[in-house]
């Protein structure tokens, strides 16, 4: 009894030749011929872009999708080549991957782990995708990463900031380019110290689920190391829309800094509410009251409008960076779509290029070969300076940006200004760091 693991495209074409003209349903062809899941045998290779197209993160998803389409265009030799020209590895020639034309399928994660897995499965089972990428929340990323591990395809994570993605839930087939909660804390802490001093009392509002907790833990650890005191940490329900009852007690709590460990709609609302309650102008303990939003995204910042002015946070990448890679990317994205890319777009574009390059270098689409090529890979020219894909946990280590809401934006895109580029060395941690311990990569799974 031979079996296939979630696959079928692999034999589809070779089998089609064998079975051509045979209409008798007695001919069963088992697909054990494939060396790994969805081995591309034709002239093209299919990638699966799994992004939220409905639900609250649909705008991020749409931007990710734009970047994916741009990356595919560049890989196939179209457009101006974007970051292919600045990428330190020169393996990709604009003729697809390993000479095969790059095709793609898209799906909707709905920002739900179930729907995301269903969508990824359909790409693997029906469309023969050899790699899945995308997502805009950690829950989805971890769920899809687990699926790809079982199915034997590579997962290139999109927007996922939780420590767990490359911590306790890391997987051999999964790779993350985006930064994480720990890195946010490590990057923010020195800047906070420089701007607000080392004698501060912080009040945390934390989204009451896994990502919120790991982020809060990271930021609290980093700021306490500076000498800050954590006055309180209040957990807020995910479903909250009005944060007034959480914000109101802050001013009389003796704290002089408010840390909002929120993302997406939660972040927009809690920040709006905090500004409404006058916290940005308030005084406490003889100092100016400050608000910190550790994970910033420009698209979300737009939702928060005026409220983000002067608020400090960290981000993976920003379009105003002036290195060659970023400039090339902003140019080709901006020319095609008419507005600058978001950090979500940047990270997914990079992930696609990195995957393609790894296949090219490995000379195969076999996940095990690709994984080997990505592990310990050092590169440059993709917008975050010199970057390492660490072998131990499949996390990228690169510079992290500390940003601040701009006081006088010159355009509707010009919302954040880069305060500091924290060098990669400063945000690097030991793979066995307690915040990341507990999981195992396991061994790579090629599926067949």
């Amino acid at each position, binding site marked *: 009894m031979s079996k296939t693991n*979630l696959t079928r495209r692999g*034999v589809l074409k070779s089998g089609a030749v064998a079975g051509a003209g045979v*209409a008798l349903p007695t001919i069963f062809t*088992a697909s054990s011929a494939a060396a790994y899941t969805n081995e591309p045998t034709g002239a093209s290779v299919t990638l699966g872009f799994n992004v939220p197209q*409905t639900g609250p993160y649909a705008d991020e*998803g749409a931007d990710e*999708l734009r970047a994916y389409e741009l990356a595919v265009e560049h890989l196939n030799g179209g457009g101006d080549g974007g970051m292919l020209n600045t990428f330190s590895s020169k393996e990709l020639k604009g003729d697809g991957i390993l000479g095969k034309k790059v095709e793609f*399928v898209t799906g909707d994660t709905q920002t739900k782990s179930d729907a995301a897995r269903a*969508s990824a499965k359909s790409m693997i089972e029906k469309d023969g995708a050899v790699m899945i990428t995308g997502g805009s929340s950690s*829950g989805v990323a971890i769920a899809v990463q687990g699926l790809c591990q079982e199915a034997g395809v590579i997962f290139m994570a999109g927007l996922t900031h939780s420590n767990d993605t490359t911590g306790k839930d890391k997987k051999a087939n999964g790779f993350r380019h985006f930064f994480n909660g720990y890195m946010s804390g490590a990057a923010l802490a020195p800047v906070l110290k420089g701007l607000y001093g080392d004698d501060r009392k912080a009040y945390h509002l934390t989204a009451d689920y896994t990502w919120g907790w790991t982020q809060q833990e990271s930021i609290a650890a980093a700021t306490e190391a500076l000498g800050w005191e954590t006055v309180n940490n209040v957990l807020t329900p995910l479903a909250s829309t009005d944060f007034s009852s959480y914000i109101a007690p802050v001013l009389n709590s003796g704290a002089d800094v408010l840390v909002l460990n929120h993302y997406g709609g939660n972040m927009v609302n809690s920040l709006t509410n905090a500004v409404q309650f006058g916290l940005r102008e308030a005084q406490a303990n003889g100092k100016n009251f400050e608000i910190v939003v550790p994970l910033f995204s420009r698209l979300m910042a737009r939702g928060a409008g005026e409220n983000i002015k002067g608020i400090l946070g960290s981000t993976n990448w920003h379009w105003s960076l002036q290195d060659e890679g970023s400039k090339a990317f902003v140019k080709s994205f901006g020319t095609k779509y008419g507005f600058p890319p978001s950090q979500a777009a940047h990270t997914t574009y990079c992930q696609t290029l990195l995957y393609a390059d790894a296949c090219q270098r490995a000379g195969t689409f076999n996940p095990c070969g690709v994984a080997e090529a990505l592990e310990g890979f050092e590169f440059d020219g993709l917008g975050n300076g010199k970057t390492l894909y660490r072998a131990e946990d499949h996390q990228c280590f690169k510079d992290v940006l500390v940003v601040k809401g701009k006081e006088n934006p010159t355009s509707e895109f010009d919302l954040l200004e880069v305060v500091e580029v924290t060098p990669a060395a400063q945000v690097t941690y030991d793979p066995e760091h307690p915040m990341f311990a507990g999981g195992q990569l396991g061994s790579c799974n090629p599926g067949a």
Partner: protein
Amino acid sequence: MLGLGKKDASLLLVVVALTMLAPFILNPFPSDSGMAQFNAGYPDLMQRFVIFGIFAIGFNILFGLTGYLSFGHAAFLGVGSYSAVWMFKLLSMNILPAIILSVIIAGLFSLLIGWVSLRRTGIYFSILTLAFAQMSFALAYSVLTPLTNGETGLQVTLDDPRILGVSATADGSIPVTNLFGLEMRSAYDMIVGPWTFTFSVGYYVCAIVMIAAFYLSIRIFRSPFGMMLRAIKSNQTRMNYTGLNPKPYTLAAFVISGMYAGLAGGLMASMDPLAGAERMQWTASGEVVLMTILGGVGTLIGPILGAGMIKYFENIFSKINDGVLHTWFSFLPDGIENFMVAVIHPFVGKGWHLTLGLIFMLVVTFLPGGLVEGGQRIAKALRKKDKDDDGKSPSTEPAE
């Protein structure tokens, strides 16, 4: 046959034939054609069709027969999934104990919620079930994370004990779910000319369970118990004065439908060992309500049709992007091609919700009895035509 009337038996046979031949029926288009986008015959979606079919069949036993509209049934599905995954973590990857535990736990949980909620009727009952389910979801997402793994969902990992199995396979992977060694994800491909048909073990396991569940639901519909439930919907006063106590009947219906939901949850986890909290959210409960109404409340086959329709939209329409549209219309001149793409664009891909919403409105406006009524009208029209042709009407009645 099997204790069923002639009409029911033929309905059952139709369902058996449809599910058994689903890999063919759902893959009508050659794999390389542009229309292959509409093929739904891949294992994951076929499994979802039948699993949600089970969920909806069970829900219909409560809602269709007694008229009690529960907005909290997703909680039972979620609890079933969590139970199954815990069995995979602690005991073994065999799906049988996992599914049995799912059904039992979901049954107990629904007994508790039903016992409280059934003290009220009408919308008050609906809101009570909704409140319980929302509480379950909120707690599973946050406070109960040690039990549910919160946002990420409960997964099997390499260091689970699995006392009757292995924690990790020899090559360092997590073992896969199986039924006494028969792996759920294994599949055969059959290639006939340009077509490819996939036969998945997991699908056939689900399909057999669904047929059994469907058969049981026919028996319940035709039993004195089913008649009592319809009587409760019709007139509770007369019920009381006829010497019958409606409470245990409704509670039994509630628990049975909760166990169906648990069965669906357990199967879902067996096909894909992950249990996420969103499965318990009110939108998920609302989905099964919509499936049942869309298909036809109180009919035998309606809920299965409704479940299939909604899942088809979710998984097929959401994947149609502009690139796909352009390949469809590439035979047209450029201007018309772009125009066609622009017209269809808002309804597919990220607009699949819009299409679904419109379908809901159209179906309920023009087919008050749901899809089943649509089927009946077509059958009636055909029969009329048949009669005109040879004066003979076909013996098969449409699904009630």
